[in-house]
């Protein structure tokens, strides 16, 4: 018989089931099973290379060699036979990255999860939050991100840009829901670390205690490695601590999450600078076998304009934010101009206001639309009194007696230059003007401090002055040295650094275990399939994303208290119910197609299913036309669309959204359910000519057949 289920997928499920059941309790068997799972998962996702199958064979031989005493010997034989019998399918997965059955993509993560650089299973944790299971939600998040609370406050939330709900109205407030769950779980003491693997007795050194380093340290510690983190600053957090102001991210949030990582046995050595206080050779002599560099991008770019080096009142934003974070709270001047348009510029400007500066202006060479800063941060800065000077190009810093008096600027216009597809700011002739100021803050970008790594021979760098890595493994050009975070990407996001740290931890584990590395970056992993919550269609449409309550404007101008106050519990639970559960519905559109083209009903108004050209969505419209025939549910490949009889109703739902309820009609003879009236009318129209029942009678198939046969017999001439 031809196997209809993908053998790769099936064998992967068999291993996972055995591991989850706890049957593989022999330490070596457990380790082998874990490695097999990783390798077969690579194959299922098209990430495997030519050495994957031989490595699987070796692991199976090792398992079989342990004999009958070891746990799972029967499973080992079963896996070995399964792989041998389906060798061609496995090889095809490796070579063509194709799964003929489609099983290997059937559980494809939702767009939000795919978008998250750390691959967090967003729909699963949102569903848990919706059910009030905050600690379970945090546990799901921490499978891929050890800093849920931090990210709940400062993540750039790429997930929300891909949120399918945005095609209907507004994206789910994923970031803020995460913050609520983490804070609540921490508050009630249910935010705990997962169990660690037994100690492996092998040492890994992480250089940098920023988000990338913390992420790698956490996942390595969970795998049983002895981890030491070296940090030049006097505390952990890196840019989280010294680059993000306290009104966005309170220090306690970082400290509490770092403490949990520390409690896994991770050793932190602060005030220790790699390259000067400790060297690679010294660390190797101490027994460290692998290294992870996450040193960030802490050096600021210079403005490159006259006067920049002539006045001490010209400071870079990163240094300013760092000094304030470390406790220095003196205002840099009275009248400040911040040059730049990114989040760092906004942070620097809002920090200056809180330090007591009289006037703070952000000078940006393009327009508001082109600002790379987060829109909400820009709005909040404006509310607090930060001024913006758009289309303003700084030309020269002027002053006398060692003090700045102003910034000479030129007005610009955006013009598309010949040969270029993008508009660039071009100075307007005669558009020179002077902006009075006594302090200039440069916030035009950061770069990696590569001098710290000069002693690492053979480390390759990109032309962008970042560490060159293989993005599938974060491995550098030096064996045993891995890197991630801003040092690799350039100044990027917290969540990218966290994702890079996790990816590197997995690669370091493989490196030290001697198993092959994936050829493609890992695809996010589904962490469960949590039951959906039933929501009426009208509620699903009517619920709106809540507005974030903020601190009073006076406190925002004067203190470093947290600005975003967080949603109430009720808002959080309601917001979670807006989620469309794209982890279950793949938006293949088969339901819409079947209803419209095959049944001729066209009851499903689900325009959000089209990514490129979404049209109107209204879950409420289904009820108007739907006959509850169930054709959509029968053709749904993921059981997202379901039709069930409950009590005296037939209910059609999509991932828990109740699209239609119809009263059931019972057979007037035997009492059996024969369907809703609309459905029966639809059928009757089509079979009207074949057999007509007496008026008012509703019979099931069996009773109708019996009655028809009886009539036929009675009327037959003898």
């Amino acid at each position, binding site marked *: 018989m031809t196997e209809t289920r993908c053998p790769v997928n099936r064998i992967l499920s068999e291993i996972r089931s055995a591991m989850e059941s706890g049957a593989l309790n022999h330490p070596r068997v457990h380790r082998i099973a874990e490695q097999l799972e990783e390798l077969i998962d690579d194959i299922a996702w098209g990430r495997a290379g030519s050495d994957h199958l031989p490595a699987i064979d070796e692991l199976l031989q090792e398992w079989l060699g342990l004999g009958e005493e070891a746990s799972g010997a029967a499973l080992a034989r079963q896996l070995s036979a399964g792989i041998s019998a389906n060798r061609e399918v496995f090889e095809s997965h490796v070579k063509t990255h194709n799964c003929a059955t489609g099983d290997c993509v059937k559980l494809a993560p939702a767009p939000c999860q795919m978008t998250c650089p750390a691959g967090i299973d967003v729909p699963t944790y949102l569903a848990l939050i919706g059910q009030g299971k905050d600690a379970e939600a945090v546990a799901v998040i921490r499978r891929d991100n050890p800093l849920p609370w931090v990210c709940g406050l400062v993540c750039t939330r*790429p997930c929300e*840009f891909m949120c399918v709900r945005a095609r209907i109205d507004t994206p789910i407030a994923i970031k803020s829901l995460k913050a609520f769950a983490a804070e609540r779980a921490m508050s009630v003491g249910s935010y705990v670390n997962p169990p660690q693997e037994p100690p492996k007795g092998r040492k890994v050194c992480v250089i940098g205690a920023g988000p990338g380093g913390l992420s790698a340290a956490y996942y390595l510690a969970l795998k049983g490695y002895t981890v030491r983190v070296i940090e030049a600053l006097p505390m952990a957090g890196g840019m989280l601590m010294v680059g993000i102001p306290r009104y966005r991210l309170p220090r306690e949030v970082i400290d509490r999450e770092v403490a949990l990582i520390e409690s896994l046995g991770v050793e932190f050595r602060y005030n220790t600078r790699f390259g000067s206080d400790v060297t690679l050779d010294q660390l190797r002599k101490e027994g460290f076998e692998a290294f992870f560099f996450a040193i960030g991008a802490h050096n600021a770019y210079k403005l490159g304009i006259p006067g920049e080096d002539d006045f001490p009142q010209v400071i870079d934003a990163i240094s300013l934010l760092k000094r304030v974070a470390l406790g220095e709270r003196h205002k840099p001047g009275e009248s400040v101009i911040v040059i730049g348009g990114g989040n760092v510029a906004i942070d620097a400007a809002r920090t200056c206001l809180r330090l007591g500066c009289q006037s703070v202006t952000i000078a940006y060479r393009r327009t508001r639309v082109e600002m*790379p800063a987060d829109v909400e941060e820009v709005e909040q800065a404006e509310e607090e009194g930060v001024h913006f000077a758009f289309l303003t190009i700084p030309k020269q810093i002027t002053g006398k007696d060692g003090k700045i008096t102003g910034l000479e600027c030129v007005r610009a216009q955006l013009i598309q230059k010949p040969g270029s597809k993008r508009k660039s700011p071009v100075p307007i002739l005669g558009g020179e003007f002077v902006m009075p100021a006594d302090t200039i803050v440069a916030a035009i970008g950061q770069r990696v401090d590569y001098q710290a790594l000069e002693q690492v021979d053979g480390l390759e760098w990109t032309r*962008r002055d970042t560490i060159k890595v293989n993005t599938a493994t974060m491995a550098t050009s030096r064996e045993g040295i891995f890197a991630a975070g801003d040092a690799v990407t350039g*100044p990027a*996001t917290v969540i990218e650094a966290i994702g890079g740290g996790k990816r590197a931890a997995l690669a370091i584990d493989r490196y030290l275990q001697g198993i092959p590395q994936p050829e493609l970056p890992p695809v996010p992993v589904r962490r469960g399939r949590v039951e959906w919550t039933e929501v009426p269609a009208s509620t699903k449409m009517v619920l709106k994303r809540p507005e974030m309550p903020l601190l009073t404007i006076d406190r925002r101008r004067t203190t470093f208290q947290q600005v975003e106050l967080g949603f109430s519990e009720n808002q959080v639970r309601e917001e979670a119910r807006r989620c469309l559960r794209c982890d279950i519905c793949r938006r293949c559109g088969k339901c819409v197609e079947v209803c419209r083209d095959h049944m001729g009903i066209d009851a499903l108004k689900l325009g959000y299913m089209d990514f490129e050209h979404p049209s109107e969505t209204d879950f409420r419209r289904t009820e108007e036309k739907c006959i509850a025939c169930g054709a959509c549910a029968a053709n749904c490949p993921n059981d997202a669309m379901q039709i069930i009889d409950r009590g005296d109703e037939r209910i059609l739902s999509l991932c828990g959204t109740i699209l239609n309820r119809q009263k059931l009609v019972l057979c007037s003879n035997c009492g059996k359910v024969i369907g809703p009236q609309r459905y029966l009318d639809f059928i009757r129209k089509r079979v009207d000519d074949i057999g007509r029942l007496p008026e008012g009678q509703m019979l099931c198939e069996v009773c109708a057949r019996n009655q028809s046969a009886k009539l036929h017999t009675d009327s037959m001439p003898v």
Partner: protein
Amino acid sequence: MNRFHKGQKIQIFKSSSDESWEPFMDSFVGLSGVITDPDTSINDPDALVEVSIEGKGTYRLPQDCIRPLDE
């Protein structure tokens, strides 16, 4: 065409000769996605932008291989 902005729908229309382009990225050509992080600090046409590609995940890509879908 303006610079890329957050939330913009784009298409990977060709491979890139930039050093950051890795062989596995060839499979992205023809796919659509959304800009999730343009260059964070500097308006540099040479900067890598963060793109979430439908069904593939999120990557930093050079700008010469990306074109907007909605402009």
